[in-house]
C-alpha cells in the first residue's frame, strides 16, 4: 500500500523527476499495467486542464492597475516622508508655541506678546485642578498684575491700559491707592460710594506715575486677591475695631462730601454723633492685615449700619483691649475715616455699592482731591488710628510720612497727626 502511494506520488509529478528517478519509474510502469494506466490518466488530465479556455482580462483592469501602482508611485513614495514631515512640523509648532509662551512671560501690558501671556495664564488657571491650587494660582496672577502695574509706573509708560485688583487704600498724602498703586479717580465716578480697604477691581491706564481709573468695582471678599487680605484685625481705637470696615457699614459720605464744618477731617462733624469705637461690620481685611495704608477717616458717620452682622466668633477674635496709639490725644473719636469714598451708607438706594466716590483732598492732587477740611481745632481729633495699632502690631510699616507707591502708608503723617483724605 505504501509502495503504491509512493509510486502515485512519483507519477503525479512525473515531469519533475530527475533522470535517475524517471528511469526507475519507467521500469515500474513497464511492469505494472495499473501504474501505466494511471500515468496515462494523469497525462490526459494535464492535457484537459491545459486546454481549458480562459477568458481574457478586461484591458481596463490593466489600466486601473497601472494607474493605481506605477502612476501613483510618486505619491506612494512620498507617503514614506509624510510621518517625518508631520513630526517635523509638530516639533516646529511646539518650538514656536513654547518659544512664544516663554518670550511672552516677561511681557507687560501694551506689549505685543502680552495677550499671549494672558491667554497662557487663563489656560493654566483653567487647567489647574483643585480649588485650593486654583485659588493660589489666582492669587499669584493677581500679584503678577500688580507687579506689572508697578513696572509700568517705573517705566513711565503713559497711556498703557492696565487692569489689576487690590484693596482700596488711602495714603497719608491723601492719595487713593489700590494695592499700593496710586490711582486717579475720574470725575465720572464722583459721588459714588465704595469702601476704603475693600478689594476692588481697577481698570485704567498709566498716567503720570499713577493709574487713571476708568472703572473700579468692588470685589467680593472671597475674590479679593490683595496681599495680606486675610484676617480682619482689630483696628478700633479704645480696643474696639473700627476702621475700614466701619466705613462700609456707615452710610457716610466720603471725604469728598465735605462736612458743614469744613474741617479737614471728614468725620469730625459727625464723629460725636457716631458711637465711638463702633465695631466694623465688614472690616476690609486688606486694610488691616496689610496695614500698609492709612485709613481715611470716616466721613460724617451716621451711626454705621452694619452691612453684615458679626458672628460671635468674629467678636471673640477681635481684641477688646485698648490698642496702642501712635500719639496720645490724636484721636478723638472712632476711627471712621477709613471710609473715604464711602459706599452704601446714607442712601443705599441712591448710591449703589460698587461705585467709587471721589476722594476730596485739601491739598492739590493730580486726581481727586478731598474737599472736606476739618476745623483746626479738630486737627488731632480725627484720624484713623483704628488701623494703626493693629497694623503696627502686625506688619512693619514704613517711616511715617512716607507713602511710597506700592508700599504701605503710615497711619499718621509726618507731623504725627493721622492722615486723612481731608488733611491738607
Amino acid at each position, binding site marked *: 500500500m505504501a509502495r503504491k502511494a509512493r509510486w502515485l506520488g512519483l507519477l503525479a509529478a512525473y515531469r519533475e523527476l530527475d533522470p535517475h528517478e524517471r528511469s526507475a519509474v519507467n521500469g515500474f510502469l513497464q511492469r505494472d499495467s495499473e501504474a501505466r494506466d494511471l500515468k496515462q490518466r494523469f497525462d490526459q*488530465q494535464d492535457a484537459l486542464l491545459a*486546454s*481549458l*479556455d480562459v*477568458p481574457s*482580462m478586461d484591458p481596463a483592469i490593466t489600466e486601473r*492597475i*497601472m494607474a493605481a501602482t506605477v502612476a501613483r508611485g510618486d505619491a506612494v513614495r512620498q507617503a514614506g516622508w509624510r510621518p517625518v514631515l508631520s513630526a517635523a512640523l509638530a516639533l516646529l509648532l511646539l518650538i514656536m508655541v513654547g518659544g512664544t509662551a516663554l518670550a511672552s512671560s516677561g511681557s507687560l501690558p501694551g506689549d505685543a506678546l502680552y495677550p499671549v501671556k494672558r491667554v497662557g495664564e487663563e489656560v493654566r488657571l483653567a487647567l489647574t485642578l483643585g480649588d485650593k491650587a486654583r485659588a493660589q494660582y489666582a492669587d499669584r496672577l493677581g500679584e503678577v498684575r500688580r507687579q506689572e502695574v508697578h513696572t509700568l509706573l517705573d517705566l513711565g509708560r503713559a497711556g498703557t491700559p492696565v487692569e489689576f485688583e487690590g484693596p482700596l487704600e488711602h495714603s497719608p498724602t491723601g492719595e487713593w491707592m489700590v494695592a499700593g498703586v496710586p490711582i486717579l479717580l475720574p470725575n465720572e465716578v464722583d459721588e459714588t460710594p465704595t469702601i476704603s480697604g475693600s478689594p476692588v477691581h481697577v481698570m485704567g491706564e498709566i498716567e503720570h506715575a499713577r493709574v487713571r481709573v476708568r472703572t473700579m468695582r468692588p470685589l467680593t471678599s472671597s475674590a479679593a486677591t490683595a496681599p495680606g487680605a486675610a484676617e480682619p484685625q482689630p483696628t478700633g481705637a479704645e480696643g474696639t475695631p473700627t476702621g475700614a470696615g466701619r466705613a462700609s457699614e456707615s452710610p457716610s459720605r466720603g471725604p469728598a462730601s465735605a462736612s458743614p464744618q469744613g474741617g479737614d477731617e471728614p468725620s469730625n462733624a459727625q464723629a460725636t454723633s457716631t458711637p465711638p469705637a463702633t465695631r466694623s461690620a465688614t472690616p476690609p481685611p486688606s486694610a488691616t492685615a496689610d496695614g500698609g495704608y492709612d485709613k481715611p477717616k470716616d466721613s460724617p458717620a451716621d451711626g454705621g449700619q452694619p452691612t453684615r452682622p458679626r458672628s460671635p466668633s468674629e467678636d471673640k477674635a477681635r481684641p477688646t483691649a485698648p490698642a496702642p496709639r501712635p500719639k496720645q490725644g490724636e484721636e478723638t473719636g472712632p476711627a471712621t475715616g477709613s471710609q473715604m469714598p464711602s459706599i452704601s451708607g446714607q442712601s443705599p438706594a441712591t448710591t449703589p455699592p460698587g461705585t467709587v466716590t471721589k476722594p476730596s483732598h485739601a491739598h492739590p492732587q493730580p486726581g481727586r482731591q478731598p474737599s472736606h477740611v476739618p476745623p483746626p481745632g479738630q486737627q488731632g481729633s480725627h484720624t484713623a488710628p483704628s488701623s494703626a495699632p493693629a497694623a503696627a502690631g502686625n506688619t512693619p510699616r514704613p517711616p511715617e510720612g512716607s507713602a511710597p507707591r506700592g508700599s504701605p502708608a503710615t497711619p499718621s503723617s509726618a507731623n504725627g497727626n493721622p492722615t486723612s483724605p481731608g488733611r491738607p
Partner: protein
Amino acid sequence: MPAAQPVSKAEQDALFVNLYNEFHQPIFGYLFRLLRNREGAEDAVQEAFLKAYRALPGLDGKANYRAWLYRIATNTAYDRLRRQRLLSWLPLLDAGEDPALGYDHIDGCDASIQVQEALDRLPLRYRAPLLLYSVYGLSTAEIGRVLGITRSGAKMRLARARRMFIEAHGKGE
C-alpha cells in the same frame, strides 16, 4: 524574469511592469478557476497586483517572483472566498442566485464543461495545486511556497488532487 533586486523606484516600477505583463493573464486565469467568476477574478487580480506593488520594495532579489505572485493571488482568492462564504450566511442572499458564487461558464465544448465541473468539485485546497501544476507549470517546490507547505506536502496534495479529479471527471462522464 528579473533576478536583481531593484534599488530605485524606476527599477521597481520597471520590474513591476515586467512582472505584470508576464503574469497578469495566467494569474487572472488561475483566479478565474479558483473563484469561478470573471468579475471576481478581475477584482482579485487588481487587488493582488496592488499588494504585490506595495510589497515589491521589500522583496528579496533572489525571490521566486512567479511563486511569490501566485502566493499573493492565492491568498487574495482565499480571502475573497472567505468573505463570500460569510456573506452566503446572510438570510436574504441565495447562494444559487449570487453571481459571485455562481459558476461563470465560458463558451466551450461539452468536454471543457465537464472538465470545469470536475475541477469545481475539488475542494479549494486541492484545486489550487492541481491548477498550478497542470495548467500553470509550477513545480511542486513552487506549489509548496505558494500554499505555504513543504515540497513533499505539495506532492502529496497534488497526488490526491489528481486522484480526486479523475474520480470527479469519471462521474461526469
